[in-house]
């Protein structure tokens, strides 16, 4: 069994309540940080831990914290990104639903490190039932002196609020999230300035994912160095993986970064193998935005080494033979799955979720969906396969925010690795067109 830093007590009855959570050692990080550490020392521990943003981009958290403009006279904000919307990802929901106090605790400790007096948890509107769970946890934290004025008798005070969104994937992009939190449309901002300089209400702001903030708790409890001992190289600590698709045991698993992909898919501790005794066809390893990999490439790197569940190993080989850890949304497809159909659901998703602010994404995502729709319905043509790649290429790198890449990469990689399937889909229609013509003449 791998080490569990986040989900250790998840099966404890009543762990949603302050009382049980506290009994299991909860809020120790707040006590330790507020009573014995300076804010910068907390940041220092996070830097030493090597923790990387768990929302998908994998940017070093400690470094992000040091970018926060501490010379500004303006208030500083910590905003938790709980807008989990990347297809294939449901770990934050699981964590917030079952361990709400872990997030609240992480928010307090992190806010202290950053000098934030008010912090917000921006949660996707569809998770409204979790708003209630979080608010209850926050209420208990206030009642027990962990939130509000002079926390634990120190001169540190913090208010924490939950703020629901209303259905927009784009609000997972941090500047779109801030726009939304200000009561506007979720249009990503042009950067610079980055939120660390001008974020919420143009004040210095850090935006961190739910799992990232939760990970601060064990980091402060055991120390950054201890945390960094878990994992491989620059992939330190544990990571929540959301496993779904054609596997025997879909669910959220906490893994030590560095276990082999093969073990993750086939061991009974995790996915438990492919369902219905079928064979593995493909994996989307880090949420819908990352390149899809066929079975032969997911288990071994180009160098022939076993591929590991780490940022580096999954990315090994670049986009030719590799992918990304992303948000840890691990979607498994068996031999019966149609890559064309699956890609169609992705492209429909990005088309639906484009904010429409910049032209390549606004126009390109819809075009991709339409081409895939026609391929799927059997009305496509041979040229469509290259057209898909070309349109994706024209979006990639040209947009304001990373939704452009998120829409382009799945297309580029699916055609790259499964070109035959796309050509067959295109040919299917040509056949039927011929047949139709024949039928018409008879």
């Amino acid at each position, binding site marked *: 069994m791998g080490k569990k830093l986040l989900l250790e007590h998840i099966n404890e009855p009543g762990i949603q309540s302050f009382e049980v959570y506290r009994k299991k050692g909860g809020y120790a990080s707040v006590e330790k940080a507020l009573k014995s550490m300076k804010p910068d020392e907390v940041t220092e521990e996070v830097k030493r831990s090597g923790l990387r943003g768990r929302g998908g981009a994998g940017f070093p958290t400690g470094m992000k914290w040091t970018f926060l403009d501490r010379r500004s006279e303006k*208030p500083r904000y910590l905003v938790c990104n709980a807008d*989990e919307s*990347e*297809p*294939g*990802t*449901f770990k*934050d*929901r699981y964590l917030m639903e079952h361990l709400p106090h872990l997030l609240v605790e992480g928010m307090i400790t992190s806010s202290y490190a950053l000098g934030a007096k*008010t912090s917000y948890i921006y949660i*996707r*509107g*569809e998770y*409204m*039932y979790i*708003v*209630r769970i979080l*608010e209850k946890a*926050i*209420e208990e934290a*206030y009642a027990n002196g962990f939130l509000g004025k002079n926390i634990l008798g120190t001169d540190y005070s913090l*208010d924490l*609020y939950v*703020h*629901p*969104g*209303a*259905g*927009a*994937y784009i609000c997972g992009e941090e500047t779109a999230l801030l726009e*939304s*939190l*200000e*009561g*506007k*449309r*979720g249009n990503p901002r042009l950067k610079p300035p980055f939120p660390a300089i001008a974020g919420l*209400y143009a004040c210095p702001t850090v935006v961190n994912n739910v799992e990232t903030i939760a990970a601060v708790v064990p980091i402060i409890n055991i120390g950054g160095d201890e945390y960094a001992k878990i994992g491989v190289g620059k992939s330190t600590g544990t990571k929540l993986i*959301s*496993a*779904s*698709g*054609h596997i025997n045991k*879909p*669910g*959220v698993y906490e893994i030590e970064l560095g276990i082999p992909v093969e073990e993750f898919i086939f061991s009974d501790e995790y996915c438990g193998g492919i369902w219905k005794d079928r064979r593995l066809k493909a994996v*989307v390893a880090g949420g*819908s935005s990352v390149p899809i990999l066929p079975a032969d490439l997911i288990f071994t790197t180009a160098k022939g080494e076993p591929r590991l569940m780490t940022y580096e190993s999954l990315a090994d080989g670049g986009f030719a033979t590799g992918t990304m850890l992303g948000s840890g*949304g691990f*979607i498994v*497809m068996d031999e019966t799955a149609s890559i064309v*159909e*699956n890609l169609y*659901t*992705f492209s*429909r*998703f990005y088309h*639906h*979720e484009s*904010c429409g602010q910049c032209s390549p994404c606004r126009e390109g995502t819809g075009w991709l969906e339409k081409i895939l729709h026609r391929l799927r319905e059997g009305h496509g043509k041979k040229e469509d396969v290259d057209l898909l790649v070309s349109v994706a290429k024209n979006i990639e790198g040209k947009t304001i925010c990373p939704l452009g890449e998120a829409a382009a990469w799945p297309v580029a990689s699916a055609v790259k690795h499964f070109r035959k399937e796309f050509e067959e889909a295109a040919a299917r229609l040509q056949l039927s067109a011929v047949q139709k013509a024949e039928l018409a003449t008879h």
Partner: protein
Amino acid sequence: MSENKKIEFSIEALATAKKIMARYPEGKQKSALIPILHLAQTEFNGWLSAEVMDYVASLLSIKPIEVYEVVTFYSMFNSKPVGKCLIEVCQTSSCWLRGSDEIVAHIKNKLNINVGETSADGMFTLKTVECLGSCGTAPMLQCGADFHENLTVEKVDELLEKLRNKNERSSYLKSMITDR
């Protein structure tokens, strides 16, 4: 419920709205827009008419167009009336891999409506949505705040029956704010 009723929040809803507004710094009350729109959608029969949006704008002292811009951006806000129960079926990758197409087809058949339509009795509106973060328990649908997961056609039948008997308007909002 009555059509002639003046558009305004109940006393309780207004108190909640004020509490929500107090969460944001002075002069930043526009931040409360999305939470208050959720509240309004629940108060006013599950959708946001122009009159309701204008009312919300006046509550927050912002221009009506600022509310229209936001309402039409976010997929959870309905700018047209919907049936009593809004059935939202996820159809993205993992749900599709596990049979969401069959679930959608079954509901269409059962209620005799297409996606985007409301059943003749005004009870159900069917909507397909993109990933709701329930991929590990796919296929799934959302009705109000409730997630219904690991769906089969039998489970869908049971659910529709239950909702019909309960005869309550679905709402995302169970409770959004607690007293503090």
